[in-house]
């Protein structure tokens, strides 16, 4: 545990709860005080939500191991530690389960990234802050990163629709850079989509190569890649490396 307050590499706040948090339920007081009674003593919603989260977390883990096409409901059950009955009480099939996991995982990521944008300063600072936050969260959960970056495309049309939505939203943030760009050089109209898709392609490669835990190391390069078309190389590199701008004389 790193407790030294002076260490800049370890942020003081604890990591946010993941997207599939299991709410604590009191431990059984005796060997026989197990699951059957839990139904009487805890609100139905809490148990349902815990089941659901356990299944979603299991599904993400199973897909990270097997890949979506070779993931069976049985492997999700094994990873989640729930019964088949519980699974089908929550989801009609594997596809619905993975779509729900994707939606929850992305909503969590977006919420965390949005929070990081507050106080990040101008547009370029926000792009950098978003890159830092997103990559560090994904690095803490490479299985989720794999679902978001790669496996979602294996889910056919609904998966592709989700990818489009994500690229559109990333594109909105990036597109604000057009106003920040110095000079009158208008970038190509598809620039934002190309950058968003490109960033996802890079994540995909890293996760596929088993370097998911090290995604945070990509921050300076990826931020520079995203900023350079708008700001030029020198300025983009400065922002990406979080260096202060040179003082004007």
């Amino acid at each position, binding site marked *: 545990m790193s407790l030294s307050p002076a260490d800049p590499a370890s942020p003081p706040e604890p990591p946010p709860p993941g997207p599939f948090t299991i709410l604590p339920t009191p431990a059984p007081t005796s060997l026989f005080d197990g699951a059957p009674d839990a139904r009487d003593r805890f609100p139905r919603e809490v148990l349902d939500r815990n089941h659901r989260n356990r299944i979603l977390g299991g599904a993400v883990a199973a897909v990270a191991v097997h890949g979506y096409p070779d993931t069976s409901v049985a492997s999700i059950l094994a990873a989640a530690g729930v019964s088949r009955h519980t699974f089908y009480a929550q989801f009609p099939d594997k596809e619905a389960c993975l779509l729900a996991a994707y939606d929850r995982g992305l909503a969590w990521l977006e919420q965390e990234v949005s929070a990081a944008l507050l106080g990040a300063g101008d547009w370029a600072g926000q792009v950098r802050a978003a890159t830092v936050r997103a990559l560090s969260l994904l690095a803490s959960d490479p299985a989720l990163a794999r679902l978001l970056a790669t496996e979602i495309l294996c889910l056919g049309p609904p998966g592709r629709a989700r990818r489009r939505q994500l690229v559109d939203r990333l594109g909105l943030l990036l597109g604000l850079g057009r106003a920040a760009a110095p000079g009158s050089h208008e970038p190509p109209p*598809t620039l934002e989509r*190309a*950058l968003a898709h*490109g960033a996802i*392609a890079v994540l995909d490669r890293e996760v596929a190569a088993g370097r998911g835990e090290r995604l945070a190391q990509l921050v300076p390069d990826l931020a520079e890649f995203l900023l350079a078309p708008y700001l030029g190389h020198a300025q983009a590199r400065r922002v990406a490396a979080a260096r202060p701008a040179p003082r004007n004389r």
Partner: protein
Amino acid sequence: LTAGAENPGPPGPRPAGAPEPPPLPRGRHRLPFEFVVENQRRRLLTGAARALGEQGYAALTIKHIIATAGVSRTTFYANFDDKRDCIFAAHRDAFERLVALIMRACATEREWPQKVRAAVSASLALMDTEPGVARLITLNALASDTMIARGVVDSNAHLVTLLRDGRRHTPFGPLLPDLAEEGLIGGLLTILGARVLAGEEGTLAELEPEIVWLLLTPYLGLEEARRVARGEDGTAAAPAAPR
């Protein structure tokens, strides 16, 4: 356009140089064994590409592939283990053709930015005339298979290496972050894939100026990249200017 792209029936006469060989004659023939084997394999690869475009990966069956290719199931299994194996091979084949084409196109120009423009132009022309190849090259958007997606990443690495050469020839090239080419190629192929998926293959050539512009911007800067993309660099003119 490739004749019979929508029609998996008996292929008519094909344009010269097209990769799909004609079917073998019915009944007895004196064709050499190697010729027959190669002919069948090529028909399977191109048939798989067409069937993939019609069905999408998930719904694609070996029945579709052999019907489109006009070969027997036995022939299929003599060549490939399963659907994944076959699409994997077809993808590799399409990519090899693309890279060979790019190399030839680059050889026609002397300066690196113009080489990129020639390569983009030739690639889009290939994808427009052979929708099956377009689908395979942009397979990422179509695939429903993790292993295939991995193969796509590996093939893309080839294009990444080709583009990376520009670092030695351009003002901003040496400054680029390490992952720039990966992002550029990945982004562009996905955009092309979306067009292909929307059934807009055949119209990819009109994207040429914009794609060249996007690809060259990191190396040359926005303005110079746009000049090359629009053919305002004093060399061969690009077909159409963006906006």
